[in-house]
């Protein structure tokens, strides 16, 4: 079982990003995903900056993968995607089938991110045929669903051609919109957002009127209100999950990696907080805890 660090979903200033990735270089993560996956207007780090960080991390011994965006709407955004595809060095995580299309054209391997709609063995088989090397389970699917896919005879002859990864820690990316909800929360239009999401390094919390944390606003992305946390499920993953993904948090990311690693065999369970959840993995509502 390997541990990966997902892309930073929030908009952090450049100095903070560079400091964070210096710590990542010294950390125990095996695999690191990086890149802007949420909004093309966020340009604290430009493509070349990400590439420089990627090279630094590779030299530190990490497997590096460039993560592309989920929602591409404009031709300019596709030109930026083309840079990711043409980087020439690093594996790319596709979060939109448009990225798969470009990668497939060049016969490049890819990681299918959680926002690629791969829900069954037949789709998985097709994607493997197109170059999929790693499959990140859609966030809403359960451990049982993953087993059900992997146990199908349709994919038994290609089971060695890909690895599996599960988003296991952090606020879950649940939706993407044409609208920027952070800008809306400040009564701004998206065109005049002034990149106000940089003021919210953990997004903006959305609560129900009786105080339940329901969502987190992160620009055009809506994240889960609760922090997803599968630290106590790792011992059930050994036959189906090759890579466990932790999503960068403002604080505590590396401490949690240590807790995850310690509990691989289930011998060092952690007490979940009241705002943690693990429902999706257990075939419950995502915000539930089982």
């Amino acid at each position, binding site marked *: 079982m390997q541990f990966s660090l997902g892309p930073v979903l929030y908009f952090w200033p450049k100095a903070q990003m560079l400091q964070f990735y210096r710590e990542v270089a010294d950390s125990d993560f095996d695999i690191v995903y990086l890149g802007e996956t949420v909004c093309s207007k966020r340009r604290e780090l430009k493509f070349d900056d990400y590439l420089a960080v990627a090279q630094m991390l590779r030299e530190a011994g990490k497997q590096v993968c460039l993560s592309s965006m989920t*929602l591409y709407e404009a031709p300019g955004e596709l030109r930026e995607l083309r840079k990711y595809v043409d980087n020439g060095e690093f594996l790319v995580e596709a979060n*939109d089938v448009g990225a798969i299309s470009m990668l497939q054209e060049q016969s490049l391997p890819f990681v299918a991110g959680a926002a690629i*709609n791969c*829900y*069954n063995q037949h789709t998985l088989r097709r994607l493997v045929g197109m170059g999929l090397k790693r499959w990140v389970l859609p966030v809403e699917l359960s451990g049982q669903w993953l087993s*059900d896919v992997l146990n199908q005879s349709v994919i038994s002859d290609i089971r060695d051609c890909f690895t599996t990864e599960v988003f296991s820690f952090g606020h879950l990316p649940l939706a993407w919109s*044409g609208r920027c909800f952070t800008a809306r929360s400040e009564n701004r*239009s998206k065109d005049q957002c002034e990149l106000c999401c940089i003021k919210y390094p953990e997004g903006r919390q959305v609560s129900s009127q009786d105080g339940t944390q329901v969502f987190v606003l992160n620009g055009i992305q*809506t994240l889960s209100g609760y922090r997803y946390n599968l630290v106590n499920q790792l011992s059930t993953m050994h036959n189906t999950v090759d890579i466990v993904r932790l999503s960068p948090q403002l604080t505590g990311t590396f401490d949690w990696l240590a807790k995850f690693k310690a509990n691989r065999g289930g011998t060092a369970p952690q007490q979940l907080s009241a705002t943690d959840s693990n429902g999706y993995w257990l075939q419950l509502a995502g915000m539930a805890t089982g």
Partner: protein
Amino acid sequence: MELLCPAGSMPALKAAIEHGADAVYIGLKDDTNARHFAGLNFDEARLKEAARFVHQHGKKLHVAINTFAHPDNYQRWQRAVDMAAHAGADVLILADIAVLAYAAERYPKLERHLSVQASATNVAAINFYRQFGISRVVLPRVLSMQQVRAIARSCEIDLEVFAFGSLCIMAEGRCYLSSYMTGQSPNTAGACSPAAFVEWQDNDGTLESRLNGILIDRFAPNETAGYPTLCKGRFSVGDDTYHALEEPTSLNTLDLLPQLYAEGITSLKIEGRQRSPAYVAQITKVWRAAIDAVVSAPDHFNVQPHWQQVLAGLSEGSQTTLGAYHRKWK
């Protein structure tokens, strides 16, 4: 320019055809389609009857098989494709890569449209799906008119856009908000904010709506209470309580009709397979008149006040919006 209307039942389908739809889209009576609601949709016998009726009137029948197939019940999606093909459907509306590939290989002559649930929001994504021989793409409701125009001008493929009805504000097919709260999503169960999870409670005149126990909204006695679709509730952000994601409102693109026509959009889709035959009849009548007007004199098109009146009366919260088509909405 085609007028494509929804039908959740035979009476709704007949209403659509009789009031001027060029084509009707329907779903089967199971979770293979994104409007899997109790009492709605078509079994095999009804499906055949629907095809007969539509064809007698020289119109087309589209069948939506647009959820994502489950690993242990994949055959259900295959069977849905087989059933629609044998019943005489003119078009399949598909989203899952596996189901697209199956339909393309098994029924190559049967037209395949890419469902909005496949979430193709850009030219590269459309190119991806071309390998499954699709002839049309239904564009998600997150694009601005400018973005729709850019796709229309750079893509040699028929485009269908949503013209009227419930407004999804998230990129369809990649929204998991509903399963986060209830365990059921459009992708896996064919439903968003399912009715089985809805509860209403009256607290001394204040009406509360909940979804799986989560408070979605509170309505004062003088307010109209809407269905608790989770993205249209009032929540608190910072010190403000407001519709943090979207107001209860319906999409209405009548004002954009000349632009959509000028860009050669092939089809206008009316949302609402869950709606009554009377609703379908009224909406269809208005849009038939509007399309006929724009086609006969595109430069002199005026939105008739009584069209807007009818549509406003049939809208969520009696409000309509141009949604993402209009940059200001964003």
